[in-house]
């Protein structure tokens, strides 16, 4: 990776932190647990990197490491989205009688 490329990635990181700060600070205390489950699910995005390692076909040791990483990350993706949805479904307003 060249220095220039690294700096471009830093741009992305800095802007994402800024955007994330603004979005997350608007999440009410009510939804803080779903927020944690939600961000946990999307940090399962490391699945993408794990897929590359597992599918690179470099050598068996590296493929095994990759496969375990794929399994661990997909637990978070699958489980994280399911549980966040389960939680969000429970939040209901008072029914008007």
């Amino acid at each position, binding site marked *: 990776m060249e220095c220039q490329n690294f700096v471009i990635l830093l741009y992305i990181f800095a802007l994402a932190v800024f955007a994330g700060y603004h979005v997350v600070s608007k999440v009410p205390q009510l939804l803080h647990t779903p927020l944690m489950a*939600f961000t946990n699910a999307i940090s399962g995005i490391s699945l993408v990197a794990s897929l590359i390692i597992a599918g690179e076909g470099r050598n068996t040791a590296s493929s095994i490491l990759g496969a375990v990483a794929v399994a661990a990350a997909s637990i978070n993706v699958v489980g994280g989205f399911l549980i966040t949805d389960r939680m969000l479904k429970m939040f209901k307003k008072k029914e008007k009688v």
Partner: protein
Amino acid sequence: MGVYDLFGVDVRQTGYLFTLLIASVLFLIGLRGLSRAETSRRGLSLAGLAMLLAVVGTLLNKRIVTYEWIVGGLVVGTVIGVPMGRWIPMTKMPERIALSHAFGGLAVALVGVAEYFNHGLELSAFDLGAVGFEVLLGTITFTGSLMAFGKLMGILPGRPQTFPGQNALNLAVLAIALCLLAMLVARPDQRVLFNTLVALGLLLGVLMVVRIGGADMPVVICLLNSYAGLAAAATGFAVNVPVLIVCGALDGGSGFILALHMSKAMNRSFRNVIFGAFGARTHLKQAEKHAGVVREGTPEDAAELLKLANSVIVVPGYGMAVAQAQHAVRDLAELLEKTGAAVRYAIHPVAGRMPGHMNVLLAEANVPYDQLYELDLINDDFPRTDVSIVVGANDVVNPAARDTPGSPIYGMPILNVDQSKAVIVLKRSMNPGFAGVENGLFVKPNTMMVFGDAKKTLAQISAAVKQER
């Protein structure tokens, strides 16, 4: 890759890059949906779509040549992930979140290890630095989260394990790890440096969480959430995939904001959060015993009091989660509403073991979320409230935090329950809370203590209210 060329453009690689770009934007829009309960599920769907796009797009990546290991990993992950998402009870949410941080840390650390051993010598200094941070953050998150999980499950002792010089030791280990990282960038061929870095990361995770007690758990879980995100972002730098950086930054930032929010709610300083110097307050001297008499009441006495109340505020704490009393709370609240009382819930930010813990439990019990109030919005209403019911909360309603300079919890914002006309406290016994501080609320003349299991007591109160009506 000639097969995929179209007008000189590599269609496969271009498709991969643009899919990930769209995914990054969708993740951000999806997260924005969480700013309101009404839009939150739509936001989640968008993020789910983004994840699907990112995975499908990645499978187009030209680095991927074989699919058998991928499929194997995905199958195992799904088989474990579905039951974890579907059937884990809401009361076990802190444990489940801690465990998933461990999985996240593990995935990232393994990717880093594979990257180093496959490409270590070809990597530039920037890449190596990124891999180093990735592995360090991943391993800290992994063991730290496993420790947190063990403590929450009660497998490991919940009390903070402290010893003299702990802070200095932790900082020294961190400093050594960072030095090793710098040396690794200079000498990528020295595998021993890399291996030691991995070992120190694993050690740091343990050291960081070993001294954490139950009441400090919310801050630690937030911090680990943040580390898991930053580790994913570092992976993005290492493998040059921006969508990882975007998601990692969102997760890292979110965990950090929550940790700050929690530390503010416990009156801890920013520095305290960064260096993880929790659990220190257990060393502080206990406040002197409060002179006063505990007024103990029966569930029937409590029902008598509630029958006359026009306004009631329920204050839940970790004890409600332990007793799984959220449904019993809801039953009593509905009964009181039928007799014409206005019932609201006051939620302290650090009630429970993770941010928003009480809200999720009450939502599970079908309590409408417009009856749940944050501290700032309800605190002025206590003097106008007939009866406050404290269910398994202690430190968050301790007046010493407001009135007694020198108390270990002095300065922490509390719910002013003691200002309401009458207080009913449901509690297992007179043991002090996690901060180890006596609670003056329990001996106030307007407080009635009802001892016993909160769930049973609440059912008895409900029965008594029904009878007398």
